[in-house]
Structures are given as structure tokens and as C-alpha cells.
């Protein structure tokens, strides 16, 4: 009897908790905004026209009802291009940040946990990477490697690896001497297991917050590289490239070519940063 009552109570409180979380997530604008951006990237392209369709008719038309964002110098529909660009930029940003995290996180954790020479080597290496301005480093690497999408992602990831190394290292260091790590060692767990099952779960919130910021950085770098002409080349609907493509016309009053993709970059980066802030706050 009592047990049943207890079980029921437990279930009720669980569903109650879940509801509460759902409400909290939905009513926080930045999460909602992020969800919408992802939704646009995911299914948006099915609802707009071909981003590469050249128009034989009027070019550089101002926003109208038929094409809300106007058309560019080739007569391509800007709304369609911005929506399709979401897919490219988000995918590139996500995969670059993910690649950077999956390289940097284990290295940083290892450096902190082992300490000594390994720590020094890892620190000095990441410092020497960080001595270069990120954009200059990325530009140099892209110029040398060529500007395929894969190269872009790899280079952006690489310049972000030191960030993860240092962040993970600093998060793991204070954990290394915690009692529960000691207790895990005393229970006979190997270093690898302790790192994976006891330390990493504790640094996850920091890493996730950084991941969100990192996606924003990656999108910015990608856009910046495309803007200076090193990245994605024009017919591809990439936001940075589109801003550059339209930059020649801003002075002549045809602002919409650059402004809409620029706004897309701004909103996405802003949202990702907000989300990172939020996640950062969760950890008390």
C-alpha cells in the first residue's frame, strides 16, 4: 500500500519535473530562437525556391511580396539563398566545433590528469598556436591547402583545438584531487576509466557551453574567410560569400543583397552566444 503510494508519488514528481523543464526551455527565448534557426536549416530549403536559379528577367530587385528579400545581381532569390545558407553555415560550424572538441577535450583532460611533462608540452603547443591571430592562421592554412569545404572545416576546427585543450585542462585540474577521484582510484579503477566516467561528466557543462560559443566562432570565421574571398566561392549560398557579393552594391542603394545574409549571421551568432550563456548559468 505504502509502497504503491510512494511509487505513484515518485512518478508524479518525475512527470511534473519534466513538464517544468519543458516550460522553462520553451519560455527561454534563446533556446526557442536556436530551435527555429535549426528548423529553418533543416526543412526550410524545401519551402523556398532553387537558390541557384538565375533569372532572365529583372536583377537586383528590391524586396517584394514575391521575393521578400529581393534578388541579387544574378537575379537569384535572396530569401532562398539565405535559407539554404543556414544549412551550409550551421553544418560547417557544428562540424568544425565538434571536430575541435573531440580533439581538444581528450588532450586537455589527459594533460591535466597526467601533469608534468605532458602538461607542459600540451600547454606550450597550444600557446604557440594561439600566438597567431585566429583569422590570420586560418587564412594562411586555407591559402596553402585550398578552399574546399572539407579543408575549411578542418582548418577552423584546428585553430579552435587549443581553446578546448586549455578549457578542459583548467576544468579538470581542480577535480584531479577531489575525494571522489581518490575514492575511485582506491576502488581499483584505471586512470582511463576515472577520466572517462568520473572526470569528464563533471566538466561536461563547461564544454557544452564552450561548444555553443565555438559554433558561433566557426560560423564567423567561415563567413569572414568567404568574405575576404578565400572561402566558399559565390554561386554557393554561403552567408559570408553573399555579404561580399552584395558589398559592391550597398553604396548604390541596393542594400538587401548584403544586409539579409549579414542579419542571418548576426542572429545566429547572437543566439548561439546567448545559449552558451544560459548553459553556463545552469552550473550554479
Amino acid at each position, binding site marked *: 500500500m505504502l509502497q504503491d503510494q*510512494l511509487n505513484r508519488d*515518485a512518478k508524479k514528481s518525475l512527470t511534473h519535473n519534466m513538464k517544468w523543464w519543458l516550460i522553462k526551455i520553451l519560455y527561454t527565448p534563446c533556446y526557442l530562437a536556436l530551435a527555429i534557426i535549426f528548423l529553418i536549416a533543416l526543412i526550410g530549403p524545401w519551402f523556398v525556391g532553387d537558390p541557384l536559379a538565375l533569372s532572365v528577367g529583372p536583377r537586383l530587385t528590391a524586396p517584394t511580396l514575391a521575393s521578400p528579400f529581393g534578388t541579387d545581381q544574378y537575379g537569384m532569390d535572396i530569401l532562398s539563398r539565405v535559407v539554404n545558407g543556414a544549412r551550409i553555415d550551421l553544418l560547417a560550424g557544428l562540424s568544425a566545433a565538434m571536430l575541435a572538441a573531440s580533439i581538444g577535450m581528450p588532450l586537455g583532460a589527459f594533460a591535466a590528469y597526467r*601533469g608534468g611533462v605532458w602538461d607542459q608540452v600540451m600547454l606550450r603547443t597550444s600557446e604557440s598556436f594561439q600566438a597567431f591571430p585566429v583569422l590570420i592562421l586560418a587564412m594562411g592554412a586555407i591559402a596553402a591547402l585550398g578552399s574546399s569545404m572539407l579543408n575549411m572545416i578542418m582548418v577552423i576546427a584546428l585553430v579552435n583545438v587549443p581553446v578546448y585543450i586549455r578549457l578542459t585542462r583548467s576544468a579538470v585540474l581542480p577535480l584531479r584531487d*577531489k*575525494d*571522489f577521484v*581518490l*575514492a*575511485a*582510484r*582506491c*576502488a*581499483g*579503477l*584505471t586512470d582511463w*576509466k576515472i577520466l572517462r*566516467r*568520473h572526470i569528464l*561528466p*563533471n566538466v*561536461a557543462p563547461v564544454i557544452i557551453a564552450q561548444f555553443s560559443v565555438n559554433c558561433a566562432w566557426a560560423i564567423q570565421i567561415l563567413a569572414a574567410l568567404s568574405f575576404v574571398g578565400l572561402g566558399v566561392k559565390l554561386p554557393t549560398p554561403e552567408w559570408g560569400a553573399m555579404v561580399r557579393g552584395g558589398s559592391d552594391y550597398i553604396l548604390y542603394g541596393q542594400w538587401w543583397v548584403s544586409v539579409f545574409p549579414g542579419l542571418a549571421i548576426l542572429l545566429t551568432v547572437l543566439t548561439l552566444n546567448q545559449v552558451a550563456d544560459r548553459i553556463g548559468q545552469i552550473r550554479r
Partner: protein
Amino acid sequence: MSNTSPLIQIDNLSARIRNEDQTLFPLQGVSFSIERNVRMALVGESGSGKSLTASAILGMLPTGSQITDGTIIMNERNLALISEKEFQKIRGKEISIVFQNPKASLNPVRTVGSQIAEVLRVHERINQKQSHDKAIQLLESLGLPDPKKRARDYPHQYSGGMAQRAALAMAMACQPSLLIADEPTSGLDATLQQQVLDLLTQQVQHQKSSLLLITHDISVVGATCEQVAVMYGGRIMEVGPTELILRRPMNPYTEKLIESFSRSQDGKMTSIPGTVRPPTTELKGCPFADRCHMANKQCHTHLPELAPKGDRLIACINV
């Protein structure tokens, strides 16, 4: 004492810690043994080297320190010499430890059940499901109410007493033959102290393990342990049956230590004059000589060896 060989025998154990600017000698010839199925207390002031002795037994000396001499024999192996890999098989399985702060020894972001189950899986060939079931059983046997639900809880949902039980369940999961309890009662109020000690005693008796209780508080020893080793300045001063040592201490240090925990007739608290000798040099004489009221010239120049006297072992040249 029994005829069989002791569970663990420590002989002349010495350790050294090298810092950047100095070398310390925290253990200088520690010798004692723990019989099977016996509860033993290791008592001493802070800085006497008792915790370091425990670390040495577990092969977990802090960085910069190493064993320079002596042996720790357990099941015909010398724990002072075996590799880290071999130690990983011993820790948790044959020797385990519970710490002072049980809450801190549980990982805050994982459920208590999963942490106990993990220890079981490290040492025993069982699958995920079996290990979780066994973890629940363990929690139940330690008297945790509603263990099934509690196993899915996180440490912050536990009270101090419950966390103590969980930490103990983790330490006793693989039925180790030696459980080390490092200051398990410090920082607890008196009623909880007794509960924790009772729990320890009950578990150790139930599993037929030995207990090494490390404490600075000689008053908790009486009800819990059958044997006492008194430690000072990195050496054992006196070892023997608890009753005997507490009633009639023979080593002047033991005497003073017991005195300082009990009020004298006129109600005043007594303390041992002087401070603990920092272990910066190797000992030439008795470590307690500087503070001892019985000390003579010889005490400063002769290192007293642990010698049998009646039922006990004592290191003092004056008795």
C-alpha cells in the same frame, strides 16, 4: 594471538617526500601487523604519519614521495614493491578505504547506484544488470531505506548518514579482507560518531574482514577496536590489546595522549607540552624525547626498538 600468519605485516617501513626545497621523512621504520578478522586502531596526532601509512598500504603515496625501506607483506606479496597495475587489482578487491567526508567521495554527477555497480564490475565478471542489482542489495544490507529508489538518486539527495552508508557500500562491495577507515568520525557530532563506528564494526564483522581505523581521537577507539597501535613522529610507540593500552599505558607518549583526552581530577584539561617534531631530519633518538618528562640523555641518541613486554609491544628504553 592466533597461530595463522597475520593478514598484513608491515616491517620497518620508511618513506621520504621530496619537495622543491626540502626532504621530509614522515615514516621512519613503522612496524606493526594486522591479524585476520581483527579491528585495529592507528592512533596519533596529526603529522604522526598515520594517514601516510594508509596511503602506503594502498600504494597511493602522493606525488614526490616514495617508500625508501621496509616491507608490507600481504598474502605473500610485498606491496612496497609491486607495480601500479597489480595494485589496481588489489585496491577495492582486497583492501579498500572509506574517507573522512563520505559525500565528497561520491561523484556528484552520477547516481550512487551506478558508482557502486562500477566498482563491482571492475573486480568481478558480472554484467550491468547484475551489478546494479547487487548494488541495491548492498545498500539494503547497510540499512538504507528504499534502496531501489535510492540507488537512482544523486549524492546531493543523500543525507550525511546515508552518504556514509553509500560510501561504505562502495568500499565493502567486493568483500575486501582489509578495510581502512581514515578519520571516519572527525567532523561528526557525538551521536553520529557512534552510529558510524557501529556500522563499520558491524560490516567488518559480517564480512569477516579486518579494520584499520585511523584516528587522532583515542576516545573512539575503546568501543570499536580490539587492538591499538599508537604512532608518533613516523614510528610506532606502542601496540597491544585496546583494553590493556587504554587502562595501563606504559609508553610515556601513550600516557600523555590518553591524559589529554580525559579531564584530570581537578577538572582541568591537560595537554602535551611542546609541538610535534617536523619530520625534516632522520631520527637519531626517540621521536618523543623532546617532549617527554622521562627523557634522559640516552633517549636522544638511541632509537628505541619495538620490543615485547607482556601482551604488548613497546618502544621506550625507560620501561
